[in-house]
């Protein structure tokens, strides 16, 4: 079985992003970029399925400028077999990404597509579900365990009230939650090996997909900052403050 793993280049999770002074957008100049943490988990899951002899090939795909090839290489170093780069300088929304990815699914026919459940920049949590809708495939979102059983895949999902188990008909789309696995670190030999793996480049404009903007960004702003309060010296003082000043107990 072939597994497709779409991955995204995002601001590193340790970076506290800032808003440009004219509030037109966030300032991403000289900011450290990385593979989205959830995408890393998706790659790891696919590689483990290959190591278990269930998957035969793991293909990573990323959309964006030439810079996203850096994240494709990272995924290749983690064990993916080959990469596809869909080249575009345009800002894309999840629905555009899903439309583009559906074209790759059409061409590659993967049995399983594993994505991260959300990217930590837009925090959308949409692409996997939209891709499943467009391809008419089943969806197993927020997965914390994935088990292949003959022509089905069992997915344990993280839901508000606990855990839910569903069975999906293959081909299926899965979105990875944080506890699906703990990604490995790429070893030096694997980083070297990844340099020789192939990355095919496609132009987004050649895929016959509507990429017209879905929204206009009117402004971005910093949220209202909480002011730090006071450090207290005793539990008695805390109880007194909560009762008589904040009046919350």
């Amino acid at each position, binding site marked *: 079985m072939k597994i497709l793993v779409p991955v995204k280049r995002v601001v590193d999770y340790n970076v506290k992003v800032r808003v440009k002074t004219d509030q037109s957008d966030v300032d991403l100049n000289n900011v450290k970029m990385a593979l989205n943490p959830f995408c890393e988990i998706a790659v790891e899951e696919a590689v483990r399925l290959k190591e278990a002899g269930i998957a035969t090939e793991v293909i990573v795909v990323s959309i964006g400028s030439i810079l996203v090839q850096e994240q494709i290489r990272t995924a290749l170093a983690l064990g993916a077999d080959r990469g596809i780069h869909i080249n575009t300088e345009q800002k894309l929304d999840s*629905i555009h990404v899903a439309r583009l990815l559906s074209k790759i699914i059409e061409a590659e026919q993967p049995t399983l597509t594993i994505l991260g459940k959300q990217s930590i920049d*837009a925090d959308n949590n949409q692409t996997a579900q939209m891709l499943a809708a*467009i391809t008419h495939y089943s969806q197993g979102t927020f997965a914390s365990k994935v088990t292949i059983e003959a022509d089905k895949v069992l997915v344990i*999902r993280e839901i508000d009230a606990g*855990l*839910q*188990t569903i069975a999906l008909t293959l081909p299926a789309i899965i979105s990875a939650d944080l506890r699906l696995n703990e990604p490995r670190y790429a070893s030096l030999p694997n980083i070297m090996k990844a340099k020789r793996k192939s990355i095919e480049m496609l132009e987004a404009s050649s895929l016959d997909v509507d990429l017209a903007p879905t929204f206009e960004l009117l402004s*971005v702003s910093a949220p209202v900052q909480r002011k730090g309060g006071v450090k207290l010296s005793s539990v008695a003082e805390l109880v007194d403050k909560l009762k008589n000043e904040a009046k919350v107990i």
Partner: protein
Amino acid sequence: MSILVIAEYNAEMDLTSLRKSVKAAQLIGSNIDILLAGNDTSAFATAASHISGIHQVVVVEDSILSQPLAENHTLVIAKFSADYEHFIFAATSWGKNVAPRVAGTLNVAQFSDVIDIESADVFVRPIYAGNVIAKVKACCAKKVLTIRGTAFSEAELGDSAAEIKKVSLSDTNYSFDAGLSHFISEELSKSERPSITAASIIISGGRGMQNGANFSILERVADKLGAAIGASRAAVDAGFVSNDMQIGQTGKVVAPNLYIAVGISGAIQHLAGMKDSKIIVAINKDEEAPIFQIADYGLVGDLFDIMPELEAAL
């Protein structure tokens, strides 16, 4: 211009997130319908019909819809989509699973975790773990939104009831079974305590708790305050407590009157889920911990000394 608010059936008859979704819908327009899909939903439909400001409750019943599967529920919503311009879901795990599939089916964008609505097409939402607030103007003809519960109050309940319109599709060949997925089981966390999304006081433990058994120290204080128990990702990942207790960017978002963070450092991903709480208390032995920068009241010290003292003082 009509608005469809999608209800999430629950046997507990909890209308909280539905009423918040209606409140958000009222900022868009006044022609609001609720869609309730499920099986044996009449008591819930009756309760929902008392939410003020709605035109009608559209009810679709089919045994397959008792399962909360996105593929099947999307078929129901898509069936009614021609009559509506806005589709509003609560940003619960169910809403987040279904709304983008609906948007994908309608081939339009979706706007997640909306915290304010300025007009029928201008929405405000947090990005970058809540470190940036974006205001966007939607271009699509149809708008699919999930709304964040902590940002909206609940629409009123009234004495008068809106019409309940049962739509029967049994005479048509329409099937709500997409045939793609099957529900197998659910393992729900049982707790006598209030749920973290409803509680007015939350006590959360982090890696500093050291193990799951030590959470009993928090529970004893929670018992005295009627509080819910939450956790950081580190505490959940270490297996101290179950995943549904995680608060943060990728867990639950809460905004109680009082949030007590115990042995939690205050990473931005955790703050994303709790920084709109009214009062924040931090208990941490490291006086440099970032959590103190946003806490109203801080106590520097060992939680294993402080928490029993707090229990005794209440």
